[in-house]
């Protein structure tokens, strides 16, 4: 496991960032635990979206994934969850090779994801949505109901439980989307842009919900968001993608200060003055 994260050409400023991550990580038997993808490359119509990217996450750990538009973040998430088809490289879940598994099969093995724009079942109520998360992975209707009720209470969503999700605000919908994924009691959870389109206030609320949800499930989490601040605050470890490659990896505060990262966002040339002022 430790060698997985330190891939060849990535600039690993963190140095020790590849050490076993979050404190809550369960003891691993041998080196096969965790959700691991190694040397994954994906190309669409000749354009390379991912180039030999490796990533690993352990139970209880939150790995943030940031990078400018078009860096390959969502593609990587699709690779992990089984929605991207053209793959070289491999994906393992707790030692099992799941590279060629369908998304359904991965979900039943405990790998859940959320989607950009939520993709909630908009005609259904909040409770029904959350229940479906549990139902989809073998729960009986009754236990799904109790799982949903407990989750909604814990995440502070119970007052809207019987509303159709279409009537919820966008922020609340994002909360439900997270809750629905957590209801499946995942081992690993992939969050795809949960904060997209949220105001700062709602983002803070969402952060609270996500933290609770992670604690609730004990899952290993991969978090993508284009709001860098949001990701940095929630993550134990952050991986920066640019042009389909890993640009940097390390703890949040190191990444925030990383000159390469700043330049990736703000533009290559002439970034020095900004970075310099940042460093002061």
């Amino acid at each position, binding site marked *: 496991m430790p060698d997985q994260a330190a891939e060849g050409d990535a600039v690993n400023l963190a140095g020790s960032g590849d050490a076993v991550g979050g404190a809550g990580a369960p003891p691993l038997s041998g080196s096969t635990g965790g959700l691991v993808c190694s040397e994954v490359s994906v190309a*669409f119509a000749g354009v390379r979206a991912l180039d030999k990217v490796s990533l690993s996450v352990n139970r209880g750990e939150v790995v943030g994934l940031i990078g400018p538009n078009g860096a390959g973040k*969502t593609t990587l998430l*699709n690779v992990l969850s089984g*929605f*991207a*088809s*053209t793959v070289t490289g491999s994906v393992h879940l707790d030692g099992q090779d799941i590279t060629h598994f369908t998304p359904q099969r991965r979900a039943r093995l405990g790998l859940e994801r959320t*989607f*950009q724009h939520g993709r909630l079942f908009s005609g259904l109520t909040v409770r029904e949505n959350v229940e479906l998360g549990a139902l989809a992975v073998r729960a009986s209707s009754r236990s799904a109901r109790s799982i949903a009720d407990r989750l909604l209470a814990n995440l502070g969503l119970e007052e809207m439980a019987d509303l159709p999700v279409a009537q919820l605000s966008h922020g609340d919908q994002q909360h439900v989307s997270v809750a629905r994924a957590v209801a499946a009691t995942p081992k690993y959870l992939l969050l795809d842009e949960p904060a997209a389109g949220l105001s700062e206030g709602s983002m803070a609320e969402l952060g609270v919900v996500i933290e609770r949800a992670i604690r609730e499930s004990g899952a290993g989490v991969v978090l993508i968001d284009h709001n860098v601040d949001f990701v940095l605050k929630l993550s134990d470890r952050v991986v920066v993608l640019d042009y389909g490659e890993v640009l940097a990896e390390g703890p949040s505060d190191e990444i925030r200060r990383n000159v390469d990262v700043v330049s990736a966002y703000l533009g290559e040339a002439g970034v020095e003055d900004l970075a310099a002022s940042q460093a002061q």
Partner: protein
Amino acid sequence: MSWVSDLVNAISLGVVYGLVAVSVGLVFGVLRQVNLAQGEVIALGAYSLWMTRGLPVAASIAICCVVCVAMSLAIQVAIFRPLRGASALTTLIVTFGLSYALEAVWLIAFGPNGEPVSMLSSLNSVVLGGSIALRWITLVEIGASGLFFTGLVLILYRSKIGMMMRATAEDFQTARLVGVRIDRVVTWAFVFGGLSAALVAVLVTVQSPLVTPSFGFNLIVIGLVGVVLGGIDRLGRATAGGFVVGFVNSLLGAVVPEQQLVFLPMLTFLFVIVILVLRPAGLFTPRGSIVERV
């Protein structure tokens, strides 16, 4: 040598369904919607040939074209404009309903007996006798459809409106951004759809002169099967799909033994199911070209 005539017959039935497929495929290309009522355009075209039976052939055909185009445009305005943006299946169901209503209108207007169109019946005479029975109409069908397809390809690839249609079919939104007037493109798609319907009406009535109320529906249903079979996303694939269904039906008809011929529809539709199961996106759609939308 009878296989030669079987083959030629199969090709001629194939091109007819290819033409039917064009009228569905053109509309689908620009709007991503299915127009099943196009069959009734064909039916009205055929009835117009009967109504103008006293006139010279050229005039009769010209009127048929005008009628088909006008009706096609009327459907555009009455059905597709209010349904702009609706899904392919919604429009399929709506135009299914329209088809049924129109078929009942033909029943009221023209009666259940059917009306015979005798235009150009001399085209049924043989070019080659003997074991290869080759009839003029077969050649005319292949020739006229060939001309139509060539014309259409030329228009699509050489004219401004064709270019706009291709652009719209490929990327509706960007086409608007560069200034393609979408309404005009949609109108033209229905115009060409109407013209191909007129051609189908003329060609089919030469061989099978009796126009009955279900004349168009029978054609469009098989045409639509072909379109989906070939791959509805692209006009060329859709047309080829229409051709394949007609071709396979005709060829099976020649191969299946006399006593089992009543099961020809079963065989044809079994073929359709097999193809759809193996290639759900269409026979001519390359594998792996559907990218999951996440």
